[in-house]
Every structure is written in structure tokens, then in C-alpha cells.
């Protein structure tokens, strides 16, 4: 009776004691500092992606026809599926934080693994899409050739030079997003490992929380990238 409860107590306070770093006065101060730090970092990420959104905004105004044509050449099915994949991964992350909060180690590990699988699925689908762009010669550079788009959309009066700007932005934005996903996958591999070892519990699950915040943010970037890149103009052409 009291043996096990004492053992649990000791483990918890050990956990708490181990987790508290020397320059903090309380665990709460530490947790609040980590949270604020992650939110501030996400604010910097908003500005980081923001520079590309600014370039996108200007050129979409200038070269709407080319942006519309380039958008149509993207696979809307794969884009929609990928959006759904990330949304599912945000669910698994959020449920994972809850599992950590409730001390359910096995559930936490399963949810983190699911998140990883979904994240890798996203990257895989992205790879498929990029490969399609490669075969269609839509990658900017010496092999760039959009005569197919010029042919398919004669009413749009596409200038191939401007089309190259659309695809430059497409690859820059989805590429930067993908890099952030890869970092997220690496981060979650680490969190999964630590979770499996029992590092996280009701007293200390801050890394899961702030890792989750990062993952949700990368999801939100995609939530905007999807309509801005894939859904510019899908109206039926007369």
C-alpha cells in the first residue's frame, strides 16, 4: 500500500527534480519559459516564410495568368490528400500531448509514431509531386519548358519567362516547408525515443508540448500554401 505510493511519489519528485534546471526557481517558471521561447521562435518563422509570401503576392498580381496556369498543372488530388495527411498528424500530435499529460506512456508512443508515419507520408507524396514536375520539365533552370502549358491554355497568354517565376516560388516555398517537415520528423524521432524510455509524464511533458507547437505551425503553413499554390484558378475553361 504505502510502499508503491511512496515509490510513485519518489519517482515523480525525482522526475521533477531532475527536470528542473539550476537557473530556474520553480518548474512552472521553466515550463513557462520554454513555452514563451517556442512561441517567439514561431513568430520568427512567420516572418521567415513571410518573405516568400511577399514575393508570391507581388508576382501573383503581376503574372496572374502564369500563376493560374502553373497552379492548374499541380496535382490537386495529391495536394488535397497531403493537406488531409497533415491535419491527421496534427490530431495525433494533439492527442499525444494529452496522453503525456495523463501519463499514458504506451499511447503517447503510438501517437508519436503515427505522427512520424504521417509526416513521412507527406514527404513521400511531395516527392512524387516533385518528380512529376521533373518529368514535365517544370523545374526552373536550363531544362525548363512550359510549351505544354502554353498549348493547354491558349486563352491565358502565358509568357514562359514569367511561368518560371511561378515555379521558382513553388519550389522555394514547398521546399522550405519540406525542410521544416524534415526537421520536425527528426525532432519527433527524438521525442518518440525519449517517450519510449519513460522520460515524459504528468509532471514533465514540456518537450512534447513545444514539439507539438512546432508541428502545428508547419501544418498551418501548409494550410495556406495549399490554396495559394494549388487553387489559384481551377474554374472550368470555356
Amino acid at each position, binding site marked *: 500500500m504505502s510502499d508503491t505510493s511512496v515509490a510513485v511519489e519518489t519517482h515523480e519528485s525525482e522526475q521533477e527534480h531532475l527536470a528542473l534546471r539550476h537557473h530556474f526557481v520553480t518548474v512552472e517558471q521553466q515550463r513557462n519559459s520554454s513555452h514563451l*521561447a517556442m512561441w517567439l521562435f514561431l513568430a520568427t*518563422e512567420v516572418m*521567415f516564410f513571410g*518573405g*516568400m509570401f511577399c514575393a508570391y503576392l507581388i508576382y501573383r498580381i503581376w503574372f496572374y495568368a502564369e500563376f493560374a496556369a502553373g497552379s492548374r498543372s499541380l496535382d490537386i488530388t495529391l495536394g488535397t490528400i497531403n493537406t488531409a495527411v497533415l491535419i491527421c498528424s496534427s490530431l495525433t500530435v494533439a492527442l499525444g500531448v494529452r496522453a503525456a499529460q495523463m501519463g499514458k506512456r504506451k499511447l503517447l508512443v503510438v501517437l508519436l509514431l503515427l505522427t512520424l508515419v504521417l509526416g513521412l507520408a507527406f514527404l513521400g507524396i511531395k516527392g512524387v509531386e516533385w518528380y512529376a514536375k521533373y518529368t514535365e520539365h517544370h523545374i526552373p*533552370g536550363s531544362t525548363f519548358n512550359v510549351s505544354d502549358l502554353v498549348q493547354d491554355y491558349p486563352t491565358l497568354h502565358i*509568357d514562359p519567362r514569367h511561368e518560371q*517565376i511561378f515555379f521558382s516560388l513553388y*519550389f*522555394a516555398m514547398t521546399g522550405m516547408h519540406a525542410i521544416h517537415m524534415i526537421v520536425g520528423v527528426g525532432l519527433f524521432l527524438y521525442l518518440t525515443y525519449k517517450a519510449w524510455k519513460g522520460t515524459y509524464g504528468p509532471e514533465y511533458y514540456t518537450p512534447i508540448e513545444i514539439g507539438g507547437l512546432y508541428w502545428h505551425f508547419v501544418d498551418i503553413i501548409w494550410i495556406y500554401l495549399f490554396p495559394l499554390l494549388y487553387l489559384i484558378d481551377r474554374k472550368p475553361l470555356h
Partner: protein
Amino acid sequence: MATAAAVNVDTERENYLNSTYGIRSWLLTTDHKRIALLYLVSITFFFFIGGFFALLIRLELLTPAGDLVLSDTYNKLFSMHGQIMVFFFLVPSIPAVLGNFLIPMMVGAKDLALPRINLISWYLYIIGGALMLHAMVLGGVDTGWTFYTPFSTSFSNTHVIEAGLAIFIAGFSSILTGLNIVVTVHRMRAPGLTWSRLPLFVWSMYATSVIMLLGTPVLAITLVLVVLERSLHLGIFDPTLGGDPLLFQHLFWFYSHPAVYIMILPSMGVVSEIIPCFSRKRAFGYSAIALSSIGIAVLGFLVWAHHMFVAGISLYSALVFSLLSYLVAVPSAIKVFNWTATMYKGSISFDTPMLYAFGFIGLFTIGGLTGLFLAALGIDVHVTDTYFVIAHFHYIMVGGAVMGYLGGMHFWWPKISGRMYPEFWGKLAALIVFIGFNLTFFPQFILGYLGMPRRYWQYPPEFQVLNVLSTAGSTILAVGYLLPMAYFLWSLRYGKVAGDNPWGAAGLEWKTSSPPPTFNFDYEPVVTWEAYNYHEIPAPEEVNA
């Protein structure tokens, strides 16, 4: 001077310098004070390099003909002078050295909120610096520190990618420093230390950090886009594809204008600490000074296109940015009025830090006012891209920021090292810096007004006299900068032992020993007094060596 040879209890006591030994204890430290010193050594190193390029520039400009270096080399000299001085000296200088060292103590904490991130930030700086050095050794960059496209993306044959990546990495160092400071000020204040009791240095560092956090990422992505365009031909700025070179300039200056406030706000914070101390008076208009720091940080983001007035932006846009540029001068002026009012009827002493503060106020005012000249569209058309602009920003960056940095180093040197620098040499160096600085840069206002363009390696003969004056000034300035390096080092061994509070200054950092113990305080600070309570603090005895 002979007293220092005697065994001294203060320096024998365990402090952050002697608590652990060995190179690992320094290179793997998470102690904010040691990291500050790591930064101090690194930025001084880069200051030498940037200064060396400046001397070569001034040597070339002694004569109207281009006879010292090739024109291509000259392009590289001014480019790298700018990049090194801005990104590897000025931006980190006060935040990473004085900010790192002092902020935890000023808020009564044992360390910054994120000590490991602090160490990572130094390593990022070092990696960025190493990449930059490598790019320089391989032949450097000739795009100007501004990397304008399409020259940087399509035409330059120099190491743009490497320099761009170096600055990108150093930018992350900057972001992490800012992050640490904001979290520390929000979360680590000692009991009783409300926002309105914070030292004004902390307020200005907080404002600086907000700029670092919100502005630097835009520079980062812009550099990434330049690197991608050069390497993978993702032609976003390429005019042959219909791209807009001005888009680069908008994105670049969105950071680089606020960056100048990153460089000046910390110095303003230093001045706000020095003037009350050496006037033995509380800061006049505490709220005005504190809020004007925030005001500068916010307004500083609204004015960037004043660097682009003649680049091809629309006239309407230029009018908007011109008006906003006038606005941003207001909070700076508020500070100058408040510093002056602080000194009024104060008990002024002219120790070295105060000399630098005086120099700052005068030179920053000149620099700031000439900024207003530039903000006027009609004048800017004539003096943009001339030496007038160069003089303007050097008055602020060197006459302002560097003077503030030196003043701060002298003011807090006793706290950092436990020793006093020699006061005579301190005053002499300050005077030499002031004279050298004005001789170097005032002629440049005239040169610019008369029409000498910037970044030109040769010039019409009628400009020679002013150029010679400027070069002469630069050698004097160099002497003025070398002196403190020499006597600071000297003081480590032979300087008078400082004691906890040689200046009789207000602030928590003076309520612990010099040098401080590793965890800053031997007790838990609780603050029950207002900031700058000089009416309660006795004036120090003479500390002249």
C-alpha cells in the same frame, strides 16, 4: 598601481573566471558571463578585420587615382568592410557582450532563461564567421554589403553564396540572442522587480531583441532566395524572367533598416545607465525613455524604403516612407532631451564612461539630424549614394553605437574583470577617438554634398584635400581604438582592484562582487526600490589610478 601586486581578498574569492579551469570549461560553458567574454574576443577579432579593410579603403582614397588596388579589389574591400562590421561586429556587439553579461544580473537571475541556446548562438556566430573568413580568403564578395540583385544573383563572379550563407547563419545567432533576452526579461525577474523598476538598459535591450526576432528572419529568407537563385537558378529576382530587382531591395531593407536600430538601441541603453550615474541623479523621464525604445523598435519597421527613393519605387510610396521616416526621429529626440534633462542640476563627473556618453549624444544628434536631411526626397535625390550618406551612417554607427559600446565597456569593466582600467589613459583614448572620428567623417559630409559618389575607387582631383583629411583622421581613430585594447589587457594584471561598486552606481549588478560569482548572487535578490535611486546611494571615492 603598486597596490595591485599585494594579495587581495576580492580577486582570490571564487568567481566566474576562476571557478573552473581548462578550455573545455570555456568552450562548453553555459554561464552567460563566460559566453559574453567568448563573444567579446570574437567580435574584437572581426572588428580588427573590418577595420583593416577600412584602412585599406582610406589608403586608396588618399589619391584621386586608383593606384593602390584594382577597381575590382576596391569593390571587394568596401563590400567586406560593410558585411563584417555590420553583421559580425555591430549587430552582436552590445547585445552579445554586454547584454549577455549584464541582463541576468540586472534582473536578479542566475543566468539567462536558455543558457544552452546562448552557447549555441555563439557557435552559430563562430561558424558564420568562419564561413565569411573562408569566403574572404577565397577572394571575397564585391556586391556591396547590400547584395543588390541582379548583380549578386546573375553577374557577380565572387563568393556570394558563401558570404550569403555566412550571414544567414550569423543571423540565426542574432535571433537566438534576441529570443533569450525576451524570455529572460519576461520570466526571470527577481521578486519586486516590476517593469517600471527595470534599468533602462534592459528596456533598450528588450526593444532591440524584438527587432532581432521580427526582422532578421526576413533577411534570412532573402539571402536564401539569393543563394537559391545563384545556385539552382530559381529566378525570383531575375529581370530577364520578368522578376523585380526592387523586390530584393524591399525584402533586404525590411530587415536592414530595423537592423540599424538593433545597432543603436543598445548604445542608447548604455548611455541611459551612464548619465544618471555620473550625474548622481535619477533618469529624467524614465517612462519616456523606456517607451521611446519600444517606439523606435516599432516605427523602425515602417521606414525601410527610404533606402530606395531613387531605385524606382513609385513616388506615392516614396512620400509615405519619407513621412514615416520623419516620425521615427521623434522617439530618438525624446531620449536626447531626457538625457540632457537628467544632467541638469546633477553633480557631473567626467570619468571615461561619461566622456563617451557625451560624445555619443553630440555625434548621434549630428548623425540623426543628417538622417532627416536624407529623409527629405528633394535632398535625397542629390546626396543619395554619395559620401553624405556614408558620413551620416558612420556618425550613427561609429560616433553613436561604437562610442556607446566603448563607454559601456569602460563602465562595466570593473564588474567584468574586477579591475579598474587606468583613468588617465581612458580619458586620453576617448579624446583621441573623438578627434579622430570627427576628422575622419566630417569631411565626408562635405564631400558628399559636393557630389563625390560612394563606392568609387577614384575621384576628381578637387576632392583630394578632404579625402586626405579623412584618411588622416582614420589613423588617429585607429590609435584611439587600439589604446583601450592595450590598457584593458594591462589592467587584468596591474589594474587597481575594483571592489563591488567603484562608481557608486544603481542597479542589481553592482550589488554583487566584482568579478561576480558563477551564479551571480550569493543571496536571493528581492527588489524594493525604484530604479536610479541615486538619492540613496553615496557617491564613490576617487577611483583614479
